[in-house]
Protein backbone atom coordinates (compact mmCIF):
# COMPACT_ATOMS: atom_id res chain seq x y z
CA UNK A 1 0.00 0.00 0.00
CA UNK A 2 2.62 2.46 1.05
CA UNK A 3 4.57 3.84 -1.85
CA UNK A 4 6.37 6.65 -0.11
CA UNK A 5 9.68 6.46 1.63
CA UNK A 6 8.76 7.30 5.19
CA UNK A 7 5.81 4.91 5.19
CA UNK A 8 3.55 7.81 6.02
CA UNK A 9 -0.10 8.09 5.26
CA UNK A 10 -0.48 10.25 2.19
CA UNK A 11 -3.59 12.26 1.97
CA UNK A 12 -4.38 15.72 0.65
CA UNK A 13 -1.73 18.13 -0.46
CA UNK A 14 1.96 18.07 0.31
CA UNK A 15 1.81 14.64 1.92
CA UNK A 16 4.77 13.28 -0.02
CA UNK A 17 6.88 16.17 1.24
CA UNK A 18 8.57 16.38 4.60
CA UNK A 19 6.22 17.79 7.25
CA UNK A 20 5.43 21.46 6.75
CA UNK A 21 6.99 23.92 9.13
CA UNK A 22 4.81 26.49 10.87
CA UNK A 23 6.14 29.12 8.52
CA UNK A 24 5.16 27.06 5.49
CA UNK A 25 1.75 26.38 6.97
CA UNK A 26 1.33 30.11 7.54
CA UNK A 27 2.16 30.81 3.92
CA UNK A 28 -0.40 28.26 2.75
CA UNK A 29 -3.01 29.69 5.10
CA UNK A 30 -2.28 33.14 3.82
CA UNK A 31 -2.89 31.98 0.29
CA UNK A 32 -6.26 30.56 1.31
CA UNK A 33 -7.24 33.70 3.20
CA UNK A 34 -6.24 35.84 0.26
CA UNK A 35 -8.76 33.90 -1.81
CA UNK A 36 -11.45 34.41 0.80
CA UNK A 37 -11.73 30.77 1.80
CA UNK A 38 -12.92 29.68 5.23
CA UNK A 39 -10.58 27.39 7.12
CA UNK A 40 -11.37 24.47 9.35
CA UNK A 41 -9.19 22.26 11.52
CA UNK A 42 -10.03 18.58 11.84
CA UNK A 43 -8.48 15.61 13.58
CA UNK A 44 -8.85 11.86 13.57
CA UNK A 45 -7.05 8.72 14.62
CA UNK A 46 -8.50 6.54 11.90
CA UNK A 47 -6.12 6.81 8.97
CA UNK A 48 -8.20 4.85 6.44
CA UNK A 49 -8.28 6.78 3.16
CA UNK A 50 -12.04 6.43 2.93
CA UNK A 51 -12.49 8.04 6.33
CA UNK A 52 -13.68 11.36 4.96
CA UNK A 53 -15.42 12.89 7.94
CA UNK A 54 -12.88 13.85 10.55
CA UNK A 55 -13.78 15.47 13.86
CA UNK A 56 -13.85 19.25 13.79
CA UNK A 57 -11.62 21.06 16.22
CA UNK A 58 -13.72 24.13 16.98
CA UNK A 59 -15.77 25.86 14.35
CA UNK A 60 -14.51 26.63 10.87
CA UNK A 61 -13.01 30.10 10.81
CA UNK A 62 -14.55 32.69 8.55
CA UNK A 63 -13.56 36.26 7.74
CA UNK A 64 -10.04 36.11 9.08
CA UNK A 65 -7.34 38.36 7.71
CA UNK A 66 -4.21 36.89 9.15
CA UNK A 67 -2.95 33.31 9.55
CA UNK A 68 -1.71 33.91 13.12
CA UNK A 69 -5.11 33.12 14.60
CA UNK A 70 -5.40 29.85 12.70
CA UNK A 71 -1.88 28.83 13.60
CA UNK A 72 -2.77 29.47 17.22
CA UNK A 73 -5.73 27.15 16.82
CA UNK A 74 -3.62 24.50 15.05
CA UNK A 75 -1.14 24.59 17.90
CA UNK A 76 -3.82 24.22 20.50
CA UNK A 77 -5.18 21.25 18.54
CA UNK A 78 -1.70 19.74 18.45
CA UNK A 79 -1.48 20.22 22.17
CA UNK A 80 -4.81 18.50 22.74
CA UNK A 81 -4.18 15.68 20.25
CA UNK A 82 -0.41 15.31 19.91
CA UNK A 83 -0.72 11.80 18.48
CA UNK A 84 -3.59 12.26 16.04
CA UNK A 85 -3.74 13.20 12.42
CA UNK A 86 -4.65 16.86 12.11
CA UNK A 87 -5.53 18.45 8.84
CA UNK A 88 -6.35 21.93 7.69
CA UNK A 89 -9.06 22.35 5.09
CA UNK A 90 -9.90 25.49 3.16
CA UNK A 91 -13.47 25.85 1.94
CA UNK A 92 -14.47 27.77 -1.13
CA UNK A 93 -18.02 29.05 -1.08
CA UNK A 94 -18.27 30.65 -4.50
CA UNK A 95 -20.51 27.87 -5.81
CA UNK A 96 -22.97 28.34 -2.98
CA UNK A 97 -21.68 25.40 -0.97
CA UNK A 98 -18.61 25.24 1.17
CA UNK A 99 -16.50 22.95 -0.98
CA UNK A 100 -13.07 21.84 0.21
CA UNK A 101 -10.43 23.45 -1.95
CA UNK A 102 -7.23 22.81 -0.08
CA UNK A 103 -6.51 20.14 2.47
CA UNK A 104 -3.26 19.09 4.04
CA UNK A 105 -2.04 17.23 7.07
CA UNK A 106 -0.28 19.34 9.69
CA UNK A 107 0.24 16.76 12.41
CA UNK A 108 0.85 13.01 12.47
CA UNK A 109 1.24 10.33 15.09
CA UNK A 110 4.85 9.64 16.03
CA UNK A 111 4.72 6.17 14.53
CA UNK A 112 2.42 5.08 11.77
CA UNK A 113 2.21 1.31 11.68
CA UNK A 114 0.70 1.23 8.22
CA UNK A 115 -1.84 -1.08 6.59
CA UNK A 116 -2.22 -4.73 5.89
CA UNK A 117 -4.03 -6.38 3.02
CA UNK A 118 -7.08 -8.37 4.03
CA UNK A 119 -8.26 -11.08 1.69
CA UNK A 120 -11.80 -12.34 1.82
CA UNK A 121 -12.73 -15.54 0.07
CA UNK A 122 -16.03 -15.28 -1.70
CA UNK A 123 -18.21 -17.65 -3.66
CA UNK A 124 -16.52 -19.48 -6.52
CA UNK A 125 -13.00 -19.04 -5.18
CA UNK A 126 -13.21 -15.29 -5.81
CA UNK A 127 -11.16 -13.12 -3.53
CA UNK A 128 -11.99 -9.57 -2.51
CA UNK A 129 -9.23 -7.42 -1.16
CA UNK A 130 -9.31 -4.57 1.27
CA UNK A 131 -6.82 -2.72 3.42
CA UNK A 132 -6.81 -2.59 7.15
CA UNK A 133 -4.89 -0.20 9.36
CA UNK A 134 -2.98 -1.88 12.17
CA UNK A 135 -3.73 1.15 14.30
CA UNK A 136 -7.47 0.60 14.21
CA UNK A 137 -7.18 -2.71 16.04
CA UNK A 138 -7.26 -0.68 19.22
CA UNK A 139 -10.30 1.36 20.23
CA UNK A 140 -10.62 4.99 19.31
CA UNK A 141 -8.46 7.31 21.38
CA UNK A 142 -5.91 4.61 22.27
CA UNK A 143 -4.54 4.00 18.81
CA UNK A 144 -1.32 5.95 18.74
Amino acid at each position, binding site marked *: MMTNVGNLVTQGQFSFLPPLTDKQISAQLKYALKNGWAIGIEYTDDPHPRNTYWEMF*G*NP*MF*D*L*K*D*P*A*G*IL*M*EINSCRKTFPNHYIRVTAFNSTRGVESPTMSYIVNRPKTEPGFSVVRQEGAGRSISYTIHSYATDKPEGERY
Partner: protein
Amino acid sequence: MKKHTKELTPSDSSPVDLDAEFRASNIKEVLDKLDRELIGLKPVKTRIRETAALLLVDRVRKKLGLTAGAPSLHMCFTGNPGTGKTTVALRMAEILHRLGYVREGHLVSVTRDDLVGQYIGHTAPKTKEVLKKAMGGVLFIDEAYYLYKPENERDYGAESIEILLQTMENNRDDLVVILAGYKDRMEKFFHSNPGMRSRIAHHIDFPDYDADELLAIARLMLAAQNYRFSPEGEKAFGDYIRLRMKLEHFANARSVRNALDRARLRQANRLFEGAKKSLAKIDLMTLEAEDILASRVFLEGKLDGESNSGTETKK
Protein backbone atom coordinates in the same frame (compact mmCIF):
# COMPACT_ATOMS: atom_id res chain seq x y z
CA MET B 1 23.13 33.82 18.70
CA LYS B 2 24.83 37.16 18.59
CA LYS B 3 26.84 38.36 21.50
CA HIS B 4 25.00 40.86 23.64
CA THR B 5 27.93 43.09 24.27
CA LYS B 6 29.30 44.13 20.97
CA GLU B 7 32.60 45.74 20.50
CA LEU B 8 32.65 48.93 18.60
CA THR B 9 33.79 48.48 15.06
CA PRO B 10 34.45 51.29 12.60
CA SER B 11 31.10 50.59 10.92
CA ASP B 12 29.28 51.30 14.18
CA SER B 13 29.81 55.00 13.78
CA SER B 14 28.91 55.15 10.12
CA PRO B 15 25.92 57.40 9.47
CA VAL B 16 22.43 55.93 9.34
CA ASP B 17 20.00 57.42 6.90
CA LEU B 18 16.93 57.81 9.07
CA ASP B 19 15.51 60.30 6.66
CA ALA B 20 15.47 57.89 3.76
CA GLU B 21 13.76 55.33 5.91
CA PHE B 22 11.21 57.95 6.91
CA ARG B 23 10.45 58.77 3.31
CA ALA B 24 10.27 55.14 2.29
CA SER B 25 7.66 54.35 4.90
CA ASN B 26 5.17 56.94 3.58
CA ILE B 27 4.52 57.68 7.20
CA LYS B 28 4.75 61.41 6.61
CA GLU B 29 1.74 61.22 4.37
CA VAL B 30 -0.28 59.57 7.11
CA LEU B 31 0.87 61.95 9.79
CA ASP B 32 0.10 64.95 7.60
CA LYS B 33 -3.31 63.56 6.86
CA LEU B 34 -3.80 63.15 10.58
CA ASP B 35 -2.84 66.77 11.14
CA ARG B 36 -5.10 67.97 8.39
CA GLU B 37 -8.17 65.97 9.16
CA LEU B 38 -8.10 65.88 12.92
CA ILE B 39 -8.48 69.23 14.60
CA GLY B 40 -6.84 69.83 17.96
CA LEU B 41 -5.97 66.69 19.97
CA LYS B 42 -2.43 67.84 20.69
CA PRO B 43 -1.50 65.14 23.23
CA VAL B 44 -2.84 62.44 20.93
CA LYS B 45 -0.88 63.62 17.94
CA THR B 46 2.26 63.95 19.99
CA ARG B 47 1.92 60.39 21.19
CA ILE B 48 1.29 59.08 17.70
CA ARG B 49 4.38 60.89 16.46
CA GLU B 50 6.43 59.40 19.26
CA THR B 51 5.15 55.94 18.49
CA ALA B 52 5.87 56.37 14.81
CA ALA B 53 9.38 57.56 15.60
CA LEU B 54 10.00 54.61 17.89
CA LEU B 55 8.85 52.10 15.31
CA LEU B 56 10.89 53.75 12.61
CA VAL B 57 14.03 53.75 14.71
CA ASP B 58 13.32 50.16 15.64
CA ARG B 59 13.18 49.26 11.99
CA VAL B 60 16.51 50.88 11.25
CA ARG B 61 18.02 49.19 14.28
CA LYS B 62 16.77 45.83 13.08
CA LYS B 63 18.48 46.38 9.75
CA LEU B 64 21.73 46.89 11.59
CA GLY B 65 21.24 43.77 13.61
CA LEU B 66 20.39 45.52 16.86
CA THR B 67 17.48 43.41 17.93
CA ALA B 68 15.15 44.35 20.71
CA GLY B 69 11.82 42.87 21.66
CA ALA B 70 8.86 44.28 19.81
CA PRO B 71 7.51 47.16 21.84
CA SER B 72 4.13 46.61 23.40
CA LEU B 73 1.68 48.89 21.68
CA HIS B 74 -1.57 48.15 23.42
CA MET B 75 -3.31 51.41 24.07
CA CYS B 76 -6.08 52.90 26.09
CA PHE B 77 -7.97 55.93 24.82
CA THR B 78 -9.89 57.85 27.43
CA GLY B 79 -11.92 60.96 26.89
CA ASN B 80 -15.35 62.47 26.86
CA PRO B 81 -17.93 61.52 24.24
CA GLY B 82 -17.23 62.73 20.74
CA THR B 83 -13.55 63.51 21.21
CA GLY B 84 -12.47 61.32 18.31
CA LYS B 85 -11.39 58.11 20.00
CA THR B 86 -12.81 55.83 17.33
CA THR B 87 -11.55 58.01 14.50
CA VAL B 88 -8.03 57.98 15.91
CA ALA B 89 -8.16 54.21 16.44
CA LEU B 90 -8.91 53.76 12.75
CA ARG B 91 -5.94 55.93 11.86
CA MET B 92 -3.79 54.07 14.32
CA ALA B 93 -4.41 50.84 12.43
CA GLU B 94 -3.27 52.49 9.23
CA ILE B 95 -0.20 54.04 10.81
CA LEU B 96 0.88 50.79 12.46
CA HIS B 97 0.41 49.02 9.16
CA ARG B 98 2.56 51.53 7.31
CA LEU B 99 5.25 51.08 9.88
CA GLY B 100 5.06 47.35 9.48
CA TYR B 101 4.10 46.73 13.07
CA VAL B 102 0.85 45.00 12.17
CA ARG B 103 0.68 42.84 9.07
CA GLU B 104 -2.76 43.57 7.65
CA GLY B 105 -3.77 46.88 9.17
CA HIS B 106 -7.47 46.24 9.52
CA LEU B 107 -9.49 47.42 12.47
CA VAL B 108 -11.93 45.13 14.23
CA SER B 109 -14.25 47.23 16.33
CA VAL B 110 -16.14 45.41 19.06
CA THR B 111 -18.10 46.07 22.20
CA ARG B 112 -19.01 43.89 25.15
CA ASP B 113 -21.71 42.03 23.18
CA ASP B 114 -19.14 40.66 20.75
CA LEU B 115 -16.86 39.35 23.46
CA VAL B 116 -18.97 38.16 26.34
CA GLY B 117 -21.29 35.20 26.03
CA GLN B 118 -24.63 34.53 27.61
CA TYR B 119 -24.07 31.20 29.29
CA ILE B 120 -21.25 29.17 30.75
CA GLY B 121 -18.78 28.13 28.08
CA HIS B 122 -20.01 30.64 25.57
CA THR B 123 -17.58 33.43 26.36
CA ALA B 124 -14.24 31.81 25.61
CA PRO B 125 -14.99 30.75 22.01
CA LYS B 126 -16.67 34.06 21.35
CA THR B 127 -13.74 36.11 22.59
CA LYS B 128 -11.27 33.85 20.83
CA GLU B 129 -13.11 34.20 17.56
CA VAL B 130 -12.97 37.97 17.77
CA LEU B 131 -9.30 37.82 18.66
CA LYS B 132 -8.58 35.58 15.70
CA LYS B 133 -10.38 38.00 13.41
CA ALA B 134 -8.34 40.88 14.76
CA MET B 135 -4.98 39.16 14.34
CA GLY B 136 -2.71 41.00 12.01
CA GLY B 137 -4.57 44.19 12.77
CA VAL B 138 -6.00 46.25 15.56
CA LEU B 139 -8.71 45.20 17.98
CA PHE B 140 -10.68 48.18 19.15
CA ILE B 141 -12.84 47.62 22.21
CA ASP B 142 -15.24 50.48 22.56
CA GLU B 143 -16.72 51.22 25.98
CA ALA B 144 -14.32 48.69 27.42
CA TYR B 145 -15.43 49.33 31.01
CA TYR B 146 -18.64 47.43 30.30
CA LEU B 147 -16.56 44.25 30.09
CA TYR B 148 -16.35 44.12 33.83
CA LYS B 149 -19.42 44.39 35.96
CA PRO B 150 -18.36 44.24 39.58
CA GLU B 151 -21.93 44.26 40.89
CA ASN B 152 -22.66 40.91 39.27
CA GLU B 153 -20.31 38.19 40.39
CA ARG B 154 -21.72 35.71 37.91
CA ASP B 155 -20.92 37.96 35.01
CA TYR B 156 -18.84 36.34 32.27
CA GLY B 157 -16.94 39.54 31.51
CA ALA B 158 -14.09 38.51 33.76
CA GLU B 159 -13.52 35.38 31.68
CA SER B 160 -13.33 37.48 28.56
CA ILE B 161 -10.83 39.83 30.19
CA GLU B 162 -8.70 36.87 31.20
CA ILE B 163 -8.50 35.59 27.62
CA LEU B 164 -7.83 39.08 26.35
CA LEU B 165 -4.96 39.53 28.77
CA GLN B 166 -3.46 36.20 27.83
CA THR B 167 -3.58 36.96 24.13
CA MET B 168 -2.31 40.49 24.62
CA GLU B 169 0.70 39.02 26.32
CA ASN B 170 1.38 35.96 24.15
CA ASN B 171 0.49 37.28 20.72
CA ARG B 172 2.03 40.69 21.06
CA ASP B 173 3.38 40.52 17.53
CA ASP B 174 0.05 39.54 16.08
CA LEU B 175 -2.33 42.16 17.30
CA VAL B 176 -2.66 45.51 18.98
CA VAL B 177 -5.51 46.03 21.41
CA ILE B 178 -6.96 49.48 21.88
CA LEU B 179 -9.42 50.05 24.70
CA ALA B 180 -11.60 53.11 24.71
CA GLY B 181 -14.01 54.62 27.15
CA TYR B 182 -14.95 57.55 29.27
CA LYS B 183 -12.25 58.54 31.63
CA ASP B 184 -13.86 58.07 35.04
CA ARG B 185 -15.35 54.71 34.14
CA MET B 186 -12.10 53.46 32.66
CA GLU B 187 -10.37 54.44 35.89
CA LYS B 188 -12.81 52.27 37.78
CA PHE B 189 -12.32 49.46 35.26
CA PHE B 190 -8.55 49.51 35.66
CA HIS B 191 -8.90 49.72 39.38
CA SER B 192 -10.66 46.38 39.43
CA ASN B 193 -8.38 44.89 36.75
CA PRO B 194 -4.86 45.92 37.68
CA GLY B 195 -3.43 43.32 35.31
CA MET B 196 -5.05 45.09 32.41
CA ARG B 197 -3.64 48.46 33.38
CA SER B 198 -0.07 47.22 33.56
CA ARG B 199 -0.28 45.44 30.23
CA ILE B 200 -1.28 48.59 28.42
CA ALA B 201 1.74 50.72 27.79
CA HIS B 202 0.06 53.76 26.34
CA HIS B 203 -2.68 55.60 28.13
CA ILE B 204 -3.78 58.47 25.97
CA ASP B 205 -6.23 61.06 27.19
CA PHE B 206 -8.37 62.86 24.64
CA PRO B 207 -9.01 66.47 25.69
CA ASP B 208 -12.28 68.26 25.04
CA TYR B 209 -12.39 70.60 22.07
CA ASP B 210 -12.76 74.34 22.48
CA ALA B 211 -15.28 76.36 20.50
CA ASP B 212 -12.93 77.33 17.69
CA GLU B 213 -11.80 73.78 17.18
CA LEU B 214 -15.40 72.64 17.04
CA LEU B 215 -16.16 75.23 14.40
CA ALA B 216 -13.19 74.02 12.38
CA ILE B 217 -14.49 70.47 12.77
CA ALA B 218 -17.91 71.60 11.57
CA ARG B 219 -16.34 73.11 8.48
CA LEU B 220 -14.50 69.89 7.75
CA MET B 221 -17.62 67.81 8.24
CA LEU B 222 -19.60 70.03 5.90
CA ALA B 223 -16.88 70.03 3.29
CA ALA B 224 -16.89 66.25 3.36
CA GLN B 225 -20.59 66.29 2.51
CA ASN B 226 -20.31 69.05 -0.08
CA TYR B 227 -21.95 71.68 2.03
CA ARG B 228 -20.65 75.01 3.25
CA PHE B 229 -21.60 77.84 5.58
CA SER B 230 -22.48 81.28 4.36
CA PRO B 231 -20.40 83.86 6.28
CA GLU B 232 -23.39 84.68 8.51
CA GLY B 233 -24.16 81.01 8.84
CA GLU B 234 -20.68 80.36 10.12
CA LYS B 235 -20.95 83.14 12.66
CA ALA B 236 -24.31 81.82 13.79
CA PHE B 237 -22.89 78.34 14.15
CA GLY B 238 -20.02 79.72 16.24
CA ASP B 239 -22.62 81.24 18.56
CA TYR B 240 -24.55 78.00 18.54
CA ILE B 241 -21.52 76.01 19.65
CA ARG B 242 -20.79 78.42 22.49
CA LEU B 243 -24.37 78.16 23.74
CA ARG B 244 -24.53 74.44 23.21
CA MET B 245 -21.34 73.79 25.15
CA LYS B 246 -22.99 75.16 28.28
CA LEU B 247 -25.96 72.83 28.03
CA GLU B 248 -26.02 69.30 29.34
CA HIS B 249 -25.20 66.19 27.32
CA PHE B 250 -22.66 67.99 25.23
CA ALA B 251 -20.77 65.43 23.20
CA ASN B 252 -18.14 67.49 21.41
CA ALA B 253 -17.81 66.60 17.74
CA ARG B 254 -20.79 64.28 17.89
CA SER B 255 -23.03 67.15 19.00
CA VAL B 256 -21.64 69.22 16.19
CA ARG B 257 -22.46 66.50 13.71
CA ASN B 258 -25.99 66.21 15.00
CA ALA B 259 -26.47 69.98 14.89
CA LEU B 260 -25.28 70.01 11.30
CA ASP B 261 -27.66 67.23 10.39
CA ARG B 262 -30.52 69.22 11.80
CA ALA B 263 -29.36 72.37 10.01
CA ARG B 264 -29.38 70.41 6.75
CA LEU B 265 -32.93 69.40 7.50
CA ARG B 266 -33.95 73.01 7.99
CA GLN B 267 -32.07 74.09 4.91
CA ALA B 268 -33.91 71.55 2.82
CA ASN B 269 -37.18 72.72 4.25
CA ARG B 270 -36.32 76.35 3.59
CA LEU B 271 -35.41 75.63 0.00
CA PHE B 272 -38.55 73.62 -0.46
CA GLU B 273 -40.90 76.21 0.95
CA GLY B 274 -39.00 79.28 -0.15
CA ALA B 275 -40.37 81.65 -2.76
CA LYS B 276 -37.23 81.44 -4.80
CA LYS B 277 -38.04 78.99 -7.52
CA SER B 278 -34.85 78.90 -9.49
CA LEU B 279 -32.13 77.44 -7.34
CA ALA B 280 -28.48 77.42 -8.21
CA LYS B 281 -26.02 74.75 -7.18
CA ILE B 282 -24.61 77.15 -4.63
CA ASP B 283 -28.02 77.42 -2.92
CA LEU B 284 -28.14 73.71 -2.45
CA MET B 285 -24.71 73.77 -0.87
CA THR B 286 -25.05 76.70 1.49
CA LEU B 287 -26.28 76.63 5.07
CA GLU B 288 -27.56 80.10 5.95
CA ALA B 289 -27.73 81.74 9.36
CA GLU B 290 -31.47 81.17 9.57
CA ASP B 291 -31.00 77.40 9.27
CA ILE B 292 -28.94 77.51 12.41
CA LEU B 293 -30.72 80.25 14.33
CA ALA B 294 -33.94 78.27 14.18
CA SER B 295 -32.45 75.85 16.69
CA ARG B 296 -34.11 75.58 20.09
CA VAL B 297 -30.76 76.26 21.66
CA PHE B 298 -31.21 79.86 20.55
CA LEU B 299 -34.94 80.17 21.02
CA GLU B 300 -35.42 78.59 24.39
CA GLY B 301 -31.98 77.72 25.62
CA LYS B 302 -32.91 74.06 25.41
CA LEU B 303 -31.65 71.11 23.48
CA ASP B 304 -32.76 70.40 19.99
CA GLY B 305 -34.37 67.20 18.96
CA GLU B 306 -37.96 67.19 20.21
CA SER B 307 -38.54 66.02 23.75
CA ASN B 308 -35.59 63.84 24.56
CA SER B 309 -31.92 64.47 24.43
CA GLY B 310 -31.24 60.89 23.52
CA THR B 311 -29.96 61.88 20.13
CA GLU B 312 -26.96 63.42 21.77
CA THR B 313 -25.88 60.49 23.83
CA LYS B 314 -24.12 57.62 22.24
CA LYS B 315 -26.29 54.79 21.12
